[in-house]
């Protein structure tokens, strides 16, 4: 292993050295202090977003942000669109449904087309793992991964980390239980990497059919029983269970899943009394989470996650375009 000098605080670095990446593709590419830097930046935007009635900041004025969504999304797309607009960028959205992708154009051709339109930042979601990195290799501008297959969803992990940090003050010694369909979840993969890198103790809680092999290498300890996973947890992060996985393929039925792995008030009582409940949405109420838990304002951070999503995406858009904007030290 080469020796890595870890700066104690991000303030020891300046400019490009704070975040020496052209794209944001995977949490795996980031050092812990780079994650902290993005969280610090996002914290500023969270304040701005809360504080001012007029939230417009013109720093991305004249820049073009393309949100290329090859997979359906409502909230992530909206979040990126609002983030871009608040920074003054010209935001355009491309949905797979209305694009030439349906006409048989290859992903590479689509990437070349987007590139030729001289975008300054492209936000991409795609149903295949690795697809966003493939496009990133083909284009001249910054690329932000908004979710690729089962692989990564880095801004979701950042907004989750920011939400946790705001509520809990930090990560050291924190027990975070990520519960549900870990196998098919890019949210879980990104979160396991980021939260363990930040110092939390991460548990992956899932039935064996929905647990990826060797999950430990992503920084999480596997738990196959909900009660065991929730015991003493400071944060309970629930994952969405896709409909197509409920009908016997991976679990016998939604109601059995709810019985064994659903987050109910009784089950939440196993976690710490001040345990935070999170969910990346959209929720299947009555399946992975019961409504009275999701709607409990004292416990649920679900709306705050959405709020932090905008702040985190503003921070990422800002940081990734600093070089192109000619900011000093960021070329």
């Amino acid at each position: 292993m080469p020796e890595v000098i870890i700066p104690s605080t991000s303030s020891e670095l300046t400019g490009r050295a704070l975040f020496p990446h052209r794209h944001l593709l995977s949490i795996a590419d980031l050092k812990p202090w780079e994650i902290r830097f993005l969280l610090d930046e996002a914290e500023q935007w969270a304040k701005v977003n809360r504080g001012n009635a007029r939230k417009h900041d013109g720093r991305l004025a004249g820049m073009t942000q393309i949100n290329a969504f090859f997979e359906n999304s409502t909230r992530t797309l909206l979040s990126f669109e609002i983030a871009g607009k608040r920074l003054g960028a010209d935001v355009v959205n491309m949905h797979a449904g209305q694009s030439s992708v349906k006409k048989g154009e290859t992903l590479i051709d689509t990437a070349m087309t987007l590139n030729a339109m001289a975008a300054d930042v492209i936000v991409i979601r795609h149903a295949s793992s690795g697809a966003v990195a493939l496009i990133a290799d083909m284009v001249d501008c910054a690329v932000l991964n908004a979710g690729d297959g089962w692989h990564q969803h880095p801004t979701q992990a950042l907004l989750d980390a920011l939400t946790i940090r705001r509520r809990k003050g930090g990560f050291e010694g924190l027990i975070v239980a990520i519960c549900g369909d870990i196998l098919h979840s890019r949210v879980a993969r990104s979160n396991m990497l980021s939260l363990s890198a930040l110092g939390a103790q991460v548990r992956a809680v899932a039935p064996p059919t929905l647990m990826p092999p060797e999950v430990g290498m992503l920084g999480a300890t596997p738990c196959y029983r909900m009660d065991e996973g929730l015991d003493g947890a400071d944060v309970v992060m629930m994952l969405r269970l896709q409909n197509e996985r409920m009908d016997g393929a991976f679990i016998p039925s939604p109601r059995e899943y709810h019985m064994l792995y659903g987050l109910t008030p009784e089950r939440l009582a196993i976690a710490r009394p001040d345990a935070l409940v999170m969910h990346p949405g959209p929720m299947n109420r009555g399946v992975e989470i019961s409504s009275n838990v999701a709607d409990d304002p004292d416990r649920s951070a679900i709306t705050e996650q959405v709020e932090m999503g905008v702040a985190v995406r503003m921070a990422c858009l800002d940081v990734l375009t600093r070089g192109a904007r000619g900011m000093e030290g960021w070329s």
Partner: protein
Amino acid sequence: MNLVADNTDRMSMSRLAIVNGKLADPAGASLASGTVLIEDDRIVATGDVVVPQDAKTVDAGGLVVAPGLVDLGVFATDKPAFHFGGITRAALMPDQSSPLDDVGLIRQATREGKPDFWVHPIAAATRGLKGTELAEIGMMQAAGAKAVGTGRQWIADSGVMLRVLAYASGLGLTVISHAEDSGLTGKAVATSGETATRLGLPHAPACAEAMAIARDIMLARETGAAVHFRLVTTKAGFDVIRSAKAEGLRVTCGISPAYLFLNDQAVTDFRTFARLSPPLRFEDDRKAALEAVRDGTVDVITSSHDPRGPEDKRLPFADASPGMAGAETLLALSLNLVRDGLVSINRLVTLLSANPARILGVDAGSFTAGSAADLIFVDPDAPWIVDSGKMAAQAGNTPFDRVPVQGRVRRIMKGGVFL
């Protein structure tokens, strides 16, 4: 020498003596100086041969002279790549745009390489390779098919596989099976493990292979059929094969160099050139594969040549087609096994030429009198660097891009004629 042959025959017969070569006779123990005597398109004698006066002499210049490679299991007839790699015959997999399940398609496939390359088509075992109804195996054999194959996939229905084996056995054909339990593999594109988890790729446990092999071996025992597992890639798979061989069953197996020199970490960064079927395995399996070559469990090394252009490979990993362009690198990569002391060069030629020819039932791949005069002159130490951008193949999809290798084919002879 038969001196009573009549004059017209004598006049038309062309004799050729290849001298000054180091002969890599599959039946031998080590390289031996000697002569290869050829009459028309057949080898008539090798070794310490008195060269007839009317024979034309060709000086091999001290190069290794070996039988041309017989590649058991390619997906395309790609002559420039085969010629570069010293491959003179290939068994074409039935997985074509129209599966080779019909007499006409088989006949057409046999003609594709001629006159300077021979294609031995593998007949689809079932109609459309669907794994349900028997294809016209006997008619396809009459049209030139040299084996029966399940294609890229396993025949999941054990009853169908039993009948395929029994029927093919009656015709004297070997069944070439793809050993991955399809119920386990599903849409998997990687082996279950760290790499698949990190990359978020659909995956299947490696035991899918040994399970499939075990079933097919039980059916082979039941029917007495000859079965060849085209690619065996796991430790557990080799263990099952080893015990079947010890029992005396007619079981053979093959492997491609990718599984000997790469493990599943090669797909890191979603490298689609390393997307293979079966998928790359763990390091322990790779080591077990090398051991299986060393101890004789492996019978065949094949290129699995499957040239795929950007339209099939410049895609997200799971959407990309499996397969690699392997023909050009087959010999050079395999020579590593000789350099590493795992096998002799004679044994390597057995794996690359003699055994595949025997499984296909063709008189080639050896120096035995009567064998086809398909020869290659090899400089086994010539260094070169694999370059996916400059390959002779239809496409340069090799996971060995930029890898330095040794071993080049300098001349190639097909049926007594130099190309």
